[in-house]
């Protein structure tokens, strides 16, 4: 087309020049101008001329389409197979892409997110999340020069919102400049300001769009209302933009002010933990900011107790990198898996088109003979394959919308941004682009391959496609096998307690109504008594945390000392030791065996600070093979006698190894009981009944407490929900991949048998047995399969390190899994090849030779 445009332009120019030349010879002044004047509107003439060709092109495309349509109608089987295969591939790829896009690729919902950073200290006392101590943050914000804005928050926490009925929601406390730092503004009302954030200022809050529309009917009258958050009246001053999330990728329903009095935050003594975020000044790179913070970090390190310094590191990341760091592997793996399925589907369609092209050589030869150029034939082929791919794409999108709903339904909570996944323009664009690409490639391949039937390339291309499909299937199946095994191992990890017939609820007492320890103690005591008095209840306990989801208090190991034993301060922290505050009924209710000595009893409650129960592992670490009973242990400033040793439980989830731990009484320590607690109830009843019982009893004591009981068995199941989701999706894709590969192999071998029917006939006429013929066909299939499996195993081994972090209890290069996968695929291949092999055996030599 561009040639044509150029040609027309040159032709018109030549005309003007010749006219000008003529005019010059006639002695006309301004010949060029006169020539142009006579010609009239040149642009219009050019357009009109070009239209002649455009119309021709459009007409011929119409012809191509008509031709393609007719040829598809002649071969409905082929058309259906190709479109369905494309639809499967594109449907799977699109649905998964729409899910992972938000996590992996899409910009965050913050303005100019590339300038946002997350910085802080990494230390054993706070796990693997960077934090900033309040005085450090205060120091940094005053001295730093690289940030435009610098803010901090106290992470998300559960809080009780009282609106007619108690409601448990997510809250976060932030510095007043949090929203400007991340580049957002309240959609209604105003942002927090510095006055709101002053210690002692009347508390104000921003509420999420969701809460606003659910609970306030999306009305502007929400502004200025006083809401009751954890028993404190808070004024609503603004509504957060829709889709707001904290930089930790969790949601927040209510943003409150930090109101930290930094003059009281002294280095070396303050342990207030913040998360710090900042916006780089324009033109300042992350590396520059990191360099600028070196001295500030070094200074902060000098306030860390010397023996812990080695274990403390300071870090600064781009917010996005830090966010996806922990959540990237699973979505990337799923995306890889669907792309693999898509490739297998493409290979099948390519194979179908190759077979079809082989069958159409006569037709193409005729078209060429009557004057169609190579380009025109190529265009016809591309038109056909594009039609197939777009039809597949349309059907695939329909499939994808169904799959997406299935994913959202199957997916456990905690997959970030899953609920927002939609088939929007971006996702549709991606699907369209891959269909276009596939269509162009498929269309071009058979033509570029040339018309020769027995070209060595063709002989090479089809087996390569089949081997490639098998190889990809091996990789997919290996991944699915590994994930399924880890899931099984996770589910069979002994938890150390009995999760059945046990329900738990986490409740919070309003600080306003239960300010003193005595009031809280009284509430918890009454609750315990009331619950225990119910017939059929076999166990009641309170605890500040329950396994296996973590969230416990923890003591630095080197601060736990056995009295009367030399040792003093050990080097480093020695890691963290979780501990929990429990009532005497805890061990029996949870089903945790006491291995030595005894658990707590009612008498101990009168002197709560004097007794301790050790977990088995901690007892071993502290006492080795000595008897720990009656020994005195100092935990921080407390001095307690060991009265028993309890069996170990899984505290920090399933994947981490068992950690040492110890137990103290629920009312131990000056501040205990705190204003929150888990309430545990064991009863040999349906979980629903126990949950209702728990709620009724708690709200009978205080109707303003929100209670959301949950079966402990369900809590445990949540830990494996994500691995289960990943394993089932990957298994689904692997099954789809294997199925498609089997179809590909079947089609490939069938085609081969048809092509070689004559040869088979000759061989049989010359004395080959049916067995020989079957062996010949199976050998062929076997060669393709073996190559595919070998490549696949190599690929699986090469890719193994990417899934390592998702696995539990099974090595990424598990030879058993690999061997089983290889065997399974070999079996599938044998079945897929067996049908055409039988067809080959049934060839009648006389008929085959006479044919044609």
């Amino acid at each position, binding site marked *: 087309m561009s040639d044509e445009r150029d040609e027309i332009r040159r032709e018109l120019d030549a005309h003007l020049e010749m006219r000008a030349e003529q005019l010059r010879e006639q002695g006309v002044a301004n010949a060029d101008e006169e020539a142009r004047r006579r*010609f009239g509107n040149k642009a219009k003439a050019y357009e009109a001329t070009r239209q002649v060709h455009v119309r021709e092109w459009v007409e011929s495309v119409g012809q191509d389409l008509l031709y393609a349509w007719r040829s598809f109608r002649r071969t409905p089987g082929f058309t259906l197979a190709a479109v369905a295969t494309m639809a499967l591939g594109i449907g799977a790829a699109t649905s998964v892409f729409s899910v992972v896009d938000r996590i992996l690729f899409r910009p965050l919902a913050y303005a100019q997110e590339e300038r946002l950073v997350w910085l802080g200290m990494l230390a054993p006392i706070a796990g693997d999340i960077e934090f900033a101590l309040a005085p450090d943050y205060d120091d940094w914000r005053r001295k730093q020069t690289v940030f435009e804005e610098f803010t901090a928050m106290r992470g998300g926490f559960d809080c009780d919102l009282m609106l007619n009925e108690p409601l448990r929601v997510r809250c976060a406390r932030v510095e007043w400049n949090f929203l400007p730092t991340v580049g957002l503004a309240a959609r209604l009302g105003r942002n927090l300001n510095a006055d709101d954030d002053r210690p002692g200022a009347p508390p104000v809050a921003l509420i999420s769009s969701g809460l606003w529309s659910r609970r306030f009917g999306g009305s502007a009258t929400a502004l200025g209302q006083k809401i009751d958050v954890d028993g404190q009246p808070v004024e609503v001053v603004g509504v957060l933009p829709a889709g707001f999330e904290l930089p930790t990728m969790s949601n927040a329903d209510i943003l409150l002010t930090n109101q930290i009095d930094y003059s009281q935050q002294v280095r070396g003594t303050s342990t207030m933990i913040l998360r710090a975020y900042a916006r780089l000044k324009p033109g300042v790179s992350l590396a520059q900011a990191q360099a600028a913070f070196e001295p500030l970090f070094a200074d902060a390190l000098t306030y860390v107790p010397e023996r812990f310094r080695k274990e403390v590191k300071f870090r600064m990341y781009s917010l996005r990198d830090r966010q996806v760091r922990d959540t990237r592997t699973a979505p990337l793996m799923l995306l890889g898996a669907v792309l693999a399925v898509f490739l297998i589907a493409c290979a099948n369609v390519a194979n179908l088109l190759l077979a079809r092209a082989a069958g159409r050589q006569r037709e193409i030869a005729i078209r060429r003979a009557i004057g169609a150029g190579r380009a025109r034939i190529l265009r016809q082929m591309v038109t056909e394959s594009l039609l197939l791919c777009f039809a597949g794409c349309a059907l695939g999108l329909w499939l994808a919308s169904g799959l997406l709903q299935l994913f959202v339904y199957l997916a456990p909570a905690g997959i970030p941004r899953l609920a927002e996944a939609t088939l929007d323009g971006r996702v549709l664009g991606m699907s369209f682009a891959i269909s276009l690409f596939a269509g162009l490639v498929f269309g071009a391949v058979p033509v570029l391959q040339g018309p020769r039937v027995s070209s060595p390339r063709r002989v090479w291309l089809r087996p390569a496609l089949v081997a490639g499909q098998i190889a990809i299937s091996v990789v997919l199946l290996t991944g699915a096998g590994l994930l399924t095994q880890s899931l099984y191992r996770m589910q069979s990890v002994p938890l150390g307690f009995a999760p059945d017939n046990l329900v738990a609820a986490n409740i919070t007492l309003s600080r306003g109504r239960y300010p003193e320890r005595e009031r809280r103690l009284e509430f918890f005591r009454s609750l315990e008594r009331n619950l225990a008095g119910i017939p059929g209840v076999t166990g009641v306990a309170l605890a500040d945390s329950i396994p296996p989801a973590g969230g416990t208090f923890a003591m630095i190991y080197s601060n736990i000392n056995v009295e009367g034993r030399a040792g003093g301060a050990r080097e480093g922290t020695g890691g963290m030791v979780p501990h929990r505050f429990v009532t005497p009924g805890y061990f029996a209710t949870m089903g945790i065996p006491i291995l030595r000595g005894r658990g707590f009893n009612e008498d101990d409650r009168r002197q709560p600070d004097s007794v301790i129960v050790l977990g088995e592992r901690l007892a071993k670490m502290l006492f080795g093979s000595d008897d720990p009973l009656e020994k005195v242990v100092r935990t921080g400033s407390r001095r307690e006698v060991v009265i028993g040793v309890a069996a170990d439980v899984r505290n920090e989830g399933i994947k981490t190894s068992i950690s040492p731990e110890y137990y103290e009484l629920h009312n131990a320590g000056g501040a205990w009981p705190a204003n929150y607690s888990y309430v545990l109830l064991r009863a040999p009843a349906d979980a629903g009944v126990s949950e209702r019982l728990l709620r009724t009893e708690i709200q009978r004591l205080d109707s303003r407490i929100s209670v959301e009981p949950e079966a402990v068995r369900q809590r445990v199941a949540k830990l494996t929900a994500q691995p289960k989701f990943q394993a089932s999706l990957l298994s689904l894709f692997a099954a789809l991949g294997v199925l498609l590969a089997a179809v590909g192999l079947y089609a490939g071998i069938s085609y081969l048998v048809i092509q070689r029917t004559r040869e088979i006939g000759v061989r049989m006429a010359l004395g080959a047995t049916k067995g020989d013929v079957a062996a010949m066909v199976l050998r062929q299939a076997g060669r393709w399969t073996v190559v595919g499996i070998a490549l696949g195993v190599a690929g699986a081994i090469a890719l193994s390190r990417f899934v390592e972090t998702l696995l539990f209890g099974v090595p990424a290069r598990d030879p058993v899994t690999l061997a089983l996968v290889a065997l399974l695929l070999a079996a599938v291949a044998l079945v897929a090849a067996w049908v055409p092999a039988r067809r080959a055996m049934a060839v009648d030599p006389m008929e085959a030779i006479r044919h044609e």
Partner: protein
Amino acid sequence: MASDSLQGSLELLILKTLEAGPNHGFGITIHIDSVSGGLLRVEEGSLYPALHRLQKDGLLSAAWEVTPNGRRARYYSLTAAGRKKLARAVEGWASLSKGVNRLLRFA
């Protein structure tokens, strides 16, 4: 035939001009101008769409050649189909003008 005769008249003139031998667009303009004694003036802007349409319909073929003045120009020549079409068009034109003449005389 009659309905598109007036629009078709430019095509007729082009075909007729090219019957004498291959020529380029400008040459066709000059030829029509001089042979008709200046009575017929080709609108240059609509000449080229017509040429390309005729070429697309297979009535003309075209090739870049050098003019006697040493300039490169696109030369058009009649194809076999073009000759046939010219013969039919001449006939059609003759009958049309005959009809018109009769009508004029009668009135």
